[in-house]
């Protein structure tokens, strides 16, 4: 019988997790979706440790993507969407980096990227879909032939195929599988046995985690084995798929973590204003990332008043009546 100390060798600080598992040049999949459940605590730590040349593989990423790009950690992205909902319909540092030619990029759609993770998780080299037929997503390559020689990069963006089983008119697109070096995700709960529980929408977190070589999970709470195993239907990942567990309350701030806290509208608005100007942006990074060496200090800086405002109603999952303008 396993004891509740099962994750002792996986439990670590964000500093240790990044140092151990996330190298320069790594291909990284970020969990969450635009302004929900971004693994921000780990993202701040990646920036503090000045990781460089990351290759991000994303469906719809928002705050985490924009910060990593803005802080200069990213060399290339394969992406469906860079936006922060109505707080920034297009992520601002993402937009600037592409317009200024600072990062390499290749576009896919959300479903296509999710399927690519699924293919990686299943161990198949490619996967078909009908989504994207007739579009520029199919026709226009983002990466150059030279860039395609890099590790974990497909030699082609995608190809079309006639259905080999029936029908001459029946076409599909084949998409290359993804197996990122690291998947980062923020969950509500991890059990003392290492089981991961995600409340609310899972986005493509489970596929990303199963596709990745290494999985870092940050969580709001670590709960007893007996509790997490009492309701296994709620659980997302078994312990043996997880490499590092970091306990990090409010670890998704300023993005939401359903049933624990809402997104922080005032912070996301402040971020948008800062992201527009290089000088303000440097100041933001200094003040909110480099200037707060630990997550505890970050939360002190956010302040208990703000944390109280965004606290979710445990039945609804969000903070009703929150001023979101």
């Amino acid at each position: 019988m396993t004891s509740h100390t099962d994750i002792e060798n996986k439990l670590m600080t964000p500093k240790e997790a990044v140092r151990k598992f996330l190298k320069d040049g790594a291909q990284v999949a970020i969990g969450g979706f635009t302004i929900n459940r971004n693994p921000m605590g780990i993202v701040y730590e990646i920036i503090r440790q000045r990781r460089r040349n990351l290759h991000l593989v994303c469906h719809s990423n928002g705050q985490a993507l924009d910060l990593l790009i803005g802080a200069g950690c990213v060399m290339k992205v394969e992406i469906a969407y860079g936006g922060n909902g109505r707080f920034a319909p297009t992520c601002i540092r993402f937009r600037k980096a592409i317009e200024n030619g600072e990062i390499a990029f290749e576009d896919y759609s959300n479903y296509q990227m999710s399927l690519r993770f699924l293919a990686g998780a299943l161990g198949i080299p490619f996967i078909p879909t009908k989504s994207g037929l007739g579009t520029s997503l199919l026709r226009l390559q983002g990466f150059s032939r030279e860039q395609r020689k890099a590790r974990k990069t497909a030699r082609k963006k995608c190809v079309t195929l006639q259905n080999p089983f029936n029908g001459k008119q029946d076409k599909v697109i084949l998409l290359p599988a993804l197996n990122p070096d690291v998947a980062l995700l923020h969950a509500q709960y991890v059990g003392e046995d290492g089981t991961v529980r995600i409340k609310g929408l899972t986005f493509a977190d489970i596929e990303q985690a199963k596709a990745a070589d290494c999985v870092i999970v940050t969580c709001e709470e670590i709960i007893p084995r007996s509790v997490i195993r009492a309701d296994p239907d709620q659980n997302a990942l078994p312990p043996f798929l997880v490499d590092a567990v970091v306990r990090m309350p409010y670890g998704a701030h300023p993005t939401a973590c359903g049933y624990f806290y809402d997104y922080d509208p005032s912070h996301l608005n402040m971020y948008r204003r800062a992201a527009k100007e290089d000088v303000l942006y440097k100041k933001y990074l200094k003040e909110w990332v480099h200037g707060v060496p630990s997550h505890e200090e970050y939360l002190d800086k956010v302040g208990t008043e703000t944390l109280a405002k965004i606290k979710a109603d445990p039945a609804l999952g969000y903070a009703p009546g929150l001023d979101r303008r």
Partner: protein
Amino acid sequence: MHRGWTEGKEDQGMVAYTAREMMAISAGRFIKDGDILFAGTGVSMLAATVAKRIHAPKSVVFFETGGIDPSLDELPMAVSDPRVMSGTSVNSGLIDAFSIVGHRKLHTIAFLGAAQIDRFGNINSTCIGDYHKPDVRFCGSGGACDAASLASGVIIFMQHEKKKFVKKVDYLTSPGWLEGRNSRKKAGLPRGGPIAVVTNLGVMNFHEKTREMYLAEYYPGVTLDQIRKHTGFEMDMSKAVESVPPTDEELRILREEVDPQRLILG
């Protein structure tokens, strides 16, 4: 009182509703009771919610992030907003959500917005200028290409401007009728295609055979010349009629029940 809308000005004493309100209500009228609605967060959220509360109570709103039929007591600010996973029938993830969009048994309607549109309803939400060195970069497809490829029908929201209604989109993010006629089917997309474009000036539909966009409705107070001036390609206006203005009930529901904070109505 004359009710009409002119260039978004509400201070002329004759205007009882805004362009955005008219857009939400016009689009909502395309929804049939029982449709399964793939919504975004802007005006589409309003259109779906108004329709649901007025004439399509059996319709279901769902989101690409995986939230199916949320109670939507508060408007979401993003498709990942925790409000899209509250009071739902099922919470899942992206792959499950896209299996609903393209489900063969369902009549699914997707609402999309874009930076550019051409006369066949192909839309661009990726970039202006060269893809590799764009003048302006936008968010990208997200789930738009998927919905446009797989849903039974698409309703597109646009600001009616010449630079947005273009002969050729700079980047074809989401497929409309492609090159018209049966080109969509030939490309391998057996169903779907845009059914309406709803702008701040009027409503466009697509010709049944040629699949070319034509003007179906202009809002009260808007002239055909105004629409012609703001459209970058030749558009048939011979079938256009004046839109039925929003009813008091439609406006009341929109303002008091759907978006009381005016988060989207502005």
